[in-house]
């Protein structure tokens, strides 16, 4: 169990900044996801921790020891690559034994530990196969087992599920998470799939352009995003722009849309929010309810709807805005129908910064 501290990490390629002043602490046994769009510096951050890239500035500490200049083989990490990077010329057992051989573990113990880890990832019957003779999911499990068998202090995973089909990806998510809990290993997990980050992590770190935009528990990132960019990247978000006004009962409201609907706002508003000021508020599509016209907080017209199994995704035009609504299949509205929209006042999230 190891605690990882990244202090003001900077990584430059030439003049381009791949990682720009990242500071992050990962606690003992914590599962932290790095989430962000392509090219935002997730892999680079991981490579710096693993030692495959030298840091341009800043420091990386494992349990308080600066390891920024240590060779990768001396860092005691287990790493799973997006491409799996299995050794094609070694059997499954050979791949799994490699790290233990490097640690000069005795042969009997190697055999025992390899057998144990194969059991753990349910690959025992494939011990003698070469990587090219395995399916994608099996290769993925070998890659995971190879990183785990050396019992590293830290587990680093770079989009390990990106090459799997949706069903297998779901299975492997649970599998990895359960395993990580059982083994209790400090884990950094890179992904650009927000669902994956949400379901697996203790904490999600959202990165844009080499910087951390928000580092918080999954619910906080989802319900209380630090910025509009985070709100839009993590899940779908309706951003309502309007002016703050006091309602009839004195509680703050948001006047938005061309019809000038007044929305009740939650009690806690960002500092500096005063009547007359512009404000942007986030409402998740599943936090909006469709009602009979006139019954909700606003009225609009259904533009389109898509059936997606358990739910229907509506787009509703309200004035100049289009609002996404993720509604149960029990509520059915045809395209062009007039509907009412009811917002969940307690869960509207005012975004920082002026509108």
């Amino acid at each position, binding site marked *: 169990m190891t605690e990882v501290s990244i202090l003001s990490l900077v990584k430059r390629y030439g003049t381009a900044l791949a990682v720009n002043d990242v500071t992050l602490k990962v606690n003992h046994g914590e599962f932290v996801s790095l989430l962000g769009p392509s090219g935002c510096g997730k892999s680079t951050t991981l490579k710096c921790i*693993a030692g495959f890239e030298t840091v341009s500035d800043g420091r990386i500490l494992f349990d308080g020891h600066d390891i920024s200049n240590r060779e990768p083989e001396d860092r005691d990490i*287990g*790493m799973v*690559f997006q491409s799996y*990077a299995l*050794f094609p*010329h070694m059997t499954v057992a050979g791949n799994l034994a*490699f790290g233990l051989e490097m*640690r000069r573990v005795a042969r009997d113990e190697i055999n025992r530990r390899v057998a144990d880890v194969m059991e753990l990832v349910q690959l025992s019957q494939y011990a003698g196969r070469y990587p090219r003779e395995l399916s994608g999911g099996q290769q993925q499990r070998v890659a995971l087992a*190879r990183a785990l068998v050396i019992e590293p202090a830290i587990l680093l995973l770079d989009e390990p599920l990106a090459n799997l089909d949706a069903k297998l990806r779901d299975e492997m998510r649970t599998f990895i998470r359960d395993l990580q809990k059982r083994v209790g290993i400090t884990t950094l997990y890179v992904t650009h799939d927000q669902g994956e980050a949400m379901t697996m992590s203790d904490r999600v770190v959202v990165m844009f352009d080499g910087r951390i935009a928000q580092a918080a528990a999954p619910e906080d990132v989802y319900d209380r995003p630090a910025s509009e960019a985070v709100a839009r990247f993590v899940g779908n978000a309706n951003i309502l722009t309007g002016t703050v006004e006091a309602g009839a009962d004195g509680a703050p409201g948001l006047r938005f849309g061309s019809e000038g609907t007044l929305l009740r706002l939650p009690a806690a508003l960002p500092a500096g929010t005063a009547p007359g000021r512009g404000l942007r508020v986030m409402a998740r599509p599943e936090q909006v309810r469709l009602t009979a016209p006139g019954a909700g907080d606003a009225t609009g017209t259904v533009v389109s709807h898509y059936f997606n199994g358990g739910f229907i995704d509506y787009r509703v035009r309200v004035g100049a805005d289009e609002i996404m609504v993720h509604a149960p299949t029990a509520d059915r509205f045809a395209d062009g129908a007039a509907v009412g929209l009811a917002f969940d006042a307690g869960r509207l999230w005012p975004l920082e910064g002026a509108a």
Partner: protein
Amino acid sequence: MSGLFRRHFLILPAAALLFLFVMLPYVNVLVMSLRAPSDSTPYGEGFSAGGYVKLFSDPYYFEALGQTLWLGVLTAFVCFLLGLPIALHISQASRRWRGLLYGIVLSPLLVGIVVRSYGWTILLGNTGVINATLRNLGLIERPLPLMYNSFGIVVALAHVFLPFMVLPVLGALQGLDPAVGSAARSLGASRFTVFRRITLPLAMPGIQSGAILVFVLAVSSYVTPALVGGMRVKTMTVMVVDALIDQFQWPFGSALALSLAVSAGVIVLVFARLTRMKWK
């Protein structure tokens, strides 16, 4: 039948060419090697195995066969020793450098083989550049034996055939996922261990084909051994030409040529067998 045809018809032109210009000539050589010798004409009436008897009973010829095959093995080995680092280097070079390095590796092929071999005689001869320089510096009194021996031939052949080792090895290395090396490092392997346990075995398919190419080319080369080996070291190819053109003994020349081809083929097969990779 038509299914069989449809599946294989694309190789028909190549197969026809091979049959006409490789298989038939080989059969012709085989027949010729069994013709009776003659003093007045290239070959006489009737058949005889005399050519083969002469080859295997006269140590002069038999040793030349061994010597030729040995030079081929040596050349392949030297090309491996020189070519592997070059291929490793190019595979890790940036895109900009890679083109230039490719060009340098291929450059020996751009100069005609006769010119290149003459070049080596100018460098390696008794009064050649190397010996003259060393003598002028007072480092040696008698010229070093750089030419008219196996050393000179191997040096010149390795120079010519190096690209045939570098390119297949490079092909094997460039097909590798760079993350494989990183994975080995993360598991605790030093740079050198990564080379020994990962890079080298994974380059093996390229090394294997490169070695076979260089060996076959070296064993069958004529101009370089003829010029650099001179009268002193005679390889089989030189003897074949002697027999066919100078002595006008077509049956014996054919027997020499065929024996070289068959023994080289056997060596290639044994080598391929020994270096077979289960994981491919």
